[in-house]
């Protein structure tokens, strides 16, 4: 075991260790617990960065690989590794978790219980990070499911009024999805390649080679891709499987929303890029038009729904649906540009929407309401900094060039102008146009939101409430995200530079 094959395992599992440690701390040592939370997330982040530093960006293949027998009876291995596709998301996971931990230093949602809260959060962190580095279907699925339970509790315990419904819905819905996904995995397993002894394998790389090499029959691909895609689509969420998202977001505590929007949704899209498409290229080609279609429907639909929202948080939740629509559109084009656009979109959305949820959380913390009408504007007068940050992020989110939100959108539109050979060009150009319309609507609802929250004058009922403007802890938790929003916008290379080779390798596999 040297650094190179243990790094990922250590980094990924560190949070769980943290969770265990925290559990052992008596619950009255509140400060200590929060400190530990920050410590462990920070440590994990440092390790992750170390990995990123040690990563060789020159190539598109997997690094820090560790592959050992795990469950021999079913031929599942503990196979982890990282490449340009995983890297951004992997690091983002630890970054966001760390920031959430910092945020928790100040804000623990009712009903307190910091200990359990942080423990669950750490568990969640491992689950999410693991999903991005697992290269064995079973391992992937295990991490995937591992995310479910803590998030369920985060929503169900620390959520707001309607939390129970939301949590159950979230849980059952995503579980429903993953059942189909599991079916798909097993199908891959059983009709996938076998070794000399005739054992099947869950190894994603081997399955990818096999599938990309046309190992699976067309009909098989159609069926199985459908199943897996359904499972992933629920997680993304793609229209019309998105209805769990607004509820989950609205009810979840700030941290929950941040992680949910920031990372969890990406697991679905990542699954498409990593599993569904390379392993089942024909299926991907067959479904791409439909996926693209649903994606653009999602874009327009979500932005329209946003216009109708009265609840700030719900609005942002819906906006997520739209943004993930762009990501899916990029993926659906099956082109290098499209897929990279998708990855960039994921990262950007993670940073920006995460930040938006932070803002909403803080706004709620001041006003104790999320009703736009009740807030009633004038925030810019009362809390110029908070308002400024909010506006900045909102504008970033509507895809202003020069900020992170832009590249994902424009590149996916760009790629959909010329989708992968074999896909209906006219159709995808139509999608492009629809997407464009979506961007206008997006701008519309965000600006309208800003008008109703930031602008105007502070209503009577809030005067003399003495709202604090952004406090130190918030700055600490936010600055990295704000900086990233700008830096990614100005130097997209930070992501594209990482993904280019890996995606190139991937698409060259499936390209025909």
């Amino acid at each position, binding site marked *: 075991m040297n650094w190179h094959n243990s790094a990922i395992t250590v980094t990924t599992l560190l949070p769980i260790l943290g969770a265990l440690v925290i559990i052992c701390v008596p619950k009255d040592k509140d400060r200590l617990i929060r400190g530990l939370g920050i410590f462990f997330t920070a440590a994990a982040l440092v390790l992750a960065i170390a990995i990123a530093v040690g990563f060789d960006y020159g190539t598109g293949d997997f690094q820090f690989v560790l592959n050992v027998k795990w469950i021999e009876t079913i031929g599942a291995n503990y196979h982890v590794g990282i490449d340009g596709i995983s890297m951004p998301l992997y690091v983002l996971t630890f970054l966001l978790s760390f920031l959430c931990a910092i945020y928790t230093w100040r804000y623990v949602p009712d009903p307190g219980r910091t200990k359990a809260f942080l423990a669950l959060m750490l568990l969640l962190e491992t689950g999410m990070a693991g999903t991005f580095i697992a290269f064995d279907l079973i391992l992937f699925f295990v991490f995937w499911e591992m995310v479910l339970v803590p998030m369920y509790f985060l929503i169900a315990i620390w959520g707001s009024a309607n939390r129970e419904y939301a949590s159950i819905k979230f849980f059952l819905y995503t*579980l429903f999805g993953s059942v189909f996904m599991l079916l798909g995995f097993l199908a891959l397993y059983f009709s996938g390649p076998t070794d000399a002894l005739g054992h099947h394998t869950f190894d994603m790389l081997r399955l990818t080679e096999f599938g990309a090499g046309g190992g699976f029959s067309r009909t098989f691909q159609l069926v199985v891709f459908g199943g897996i895609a359904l499972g992933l689509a629920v997680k993304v969420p793609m229209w019309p499987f998105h209805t769990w998202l607004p509820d989950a977001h609205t009810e979840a505590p700030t941290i929950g929303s941040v992680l949910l929007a920031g990372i969890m949704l990406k697991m679905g899209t990542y699954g498409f890029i990593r599993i569904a498409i390379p392993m089942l290229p024909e299926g991907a080609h067959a479904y791409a038009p439909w996926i693209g279609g649903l994606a653009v429907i999602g874009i327009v639909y979500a932005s329209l729904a946003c216009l109708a929202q009265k609840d700030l948080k719900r609005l942002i939740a819906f906006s997520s649906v739209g943004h993930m629509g762009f990501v899916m559109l990029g993926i659906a084009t099956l082109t290098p540009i499209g897929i990279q656009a998708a990855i960039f979109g994921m990262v950007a959305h993670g940073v920006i929407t995460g930040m938006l949820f932070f803002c909403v959380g803080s706004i709620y913390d001041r006003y104790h309401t999320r009703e736009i009408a009740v807030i009633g504007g004038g925030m810019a007068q009362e809390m110029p900094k908070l308002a400024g940050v909010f506006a900045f992020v909102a504008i970033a989110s509507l895809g202003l060039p020069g900020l992170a939100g832009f590249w994902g959108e424009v590149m996916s539109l760009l790629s959909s102008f010329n989708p992968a050979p074999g896909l209906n060009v006219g159709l995808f150009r139509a999608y492009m146009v629809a997407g464009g319309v979506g961007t206008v609507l997006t701008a519309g609802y965000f600006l309208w939101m800003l008008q109703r929250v930031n602008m105007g004058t502070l209503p009577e009922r809030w005067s003399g409430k003495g709202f604090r403007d952004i406090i130190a802890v918030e700055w600490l938790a936010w600055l990295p995200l704000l900086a990233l929003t700008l830096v990614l916008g100005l130097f997209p290379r930070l992501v594209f530079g990482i993904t280019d080779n890996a995606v190139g390798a991937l698409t060259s596999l499936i390209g025909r």
Partner: protein
Amino acid sequence: MDIDYRALLPELILSGTVILVLVVDVFLSARRKWLAMPLAMVGVVAALVALLSLVGGPTRTAFGGSFVVDRFTLLFQGFFLVAAIVVLAISLRYFREGGFYQGEYYFLLLTAFLGCVMMPGSRDLLLLFVSLELVSAPGFLMAAFRKGDIRSNEAGLKFFLIGVLSTAVMLYGMSLIYGVTGATRLDAIAVGLSRVVGTSRETLALAAILFVVVGFAFKVSAFPFQFWAPDTYEGSPVPVAAFLAVASSAAGFAGLLQLMFIAFIGQHEFWVPIFVLLSLATMTLGNLVALQQTQIVRLLAYSGIAQSGYILMTFALVTDDAATNHAAFSAAVAYILIYGVMNVGAFAAVVAVSRRASSLRISDFAGLVKVAPLIAVGMATFMISLAGVPPTGGFWGKLLIFRAAIDRGGPLGVWLAVIMLANSVVSISYYFAVPRQMFLKPAEDETPLAAPVLVSAVVAVATVAIVMIFILPGAFARLADLSSLVGG
């Protein structure tokens, strides 16, 4: 004649303990009666040690092959002995405070476990029948052990009547099989049945098989022989319910496995459809009815029925292909063991809570996390595991059966797998009702619940075990793999 006492050592030690408990109890003063439990515990542990000494040894047969000690036997015997330890552990306080006849109870419990331990080794109709009775009869009595409580009497009565009836049917079947094949040893029966094939007696033989299955179907509470289970579980003392749910049903499966895979394997074309029907009906009914339960024990009872349905599914997978059967068999074994762990854990948790509320409704678990965090977390784990959701062992259990089903191939396999999945999804909604209560609902009285230390220990261990199984399923699967009675 020479008897391989080494092979019988665990049984002998256990029976010795039984007698010992009975005798010692007589000399114990009322306040000391509880000492019977540690005594029994020691005996069981001793038996376990003896058992372990047999592990890795050669397959031993006694009484002309009617009793066999092979890996299968050892695995299950080990399981039962551990279960015995657990049940004893969770019984102590319950019976000490409930004003029961403790000595007699432990005596009966051990006797029942003696039956369990004999079951997996019995390769003879007569032995199977006797072991089964030995498991059931004390069960009847223990179910009615809360003498003052009419519900308990009722539980005993129902259990007794249905039990005896199914025994009668089973015996009738056995008699017919004996008549048709002229044998009572399982392997001999297999041979005899193969001779019958095609003759005019085949029909009778098949009917006989059906009758025999009934006896065990009752034990594992498969539809339509499941009626007794919920009522009995509810009525009996909780530890007894735990015994019934964990040990007794596992014993039933142990017997069923041997019967089906040794004696009746030749007739699988006949009985596979039956099991298809049984398993589907059982799991579906169990899950759907469980949806409507408000009482925790009944919930567990129906969940148990559903789980039996999953296990029965493995029987429905049998084909001519040895490999498939092997997969099915080991899947069944693995599932039985995993299920045992999580179920016993759940019952332990119930025992812990039952000291707070007499009639255990799910709502009595409200806010448990504040009152008894350990128990709550454990219970949550068990529920998640029963639902088959990662990160718990239950997930593997389901996955193994699922895999076996797919492996079997053909529409049947796939359909079974799909229906099983559908059922699992349905089951989630009632399994999660419990954690929901424990974590999301406020407790009506906040006074911390001091669970008996033994019970807490059991919960803790089971919890860890479930998670460990999830992390290292390999060992478990391997175990099941080795102990298969079907040459893979």
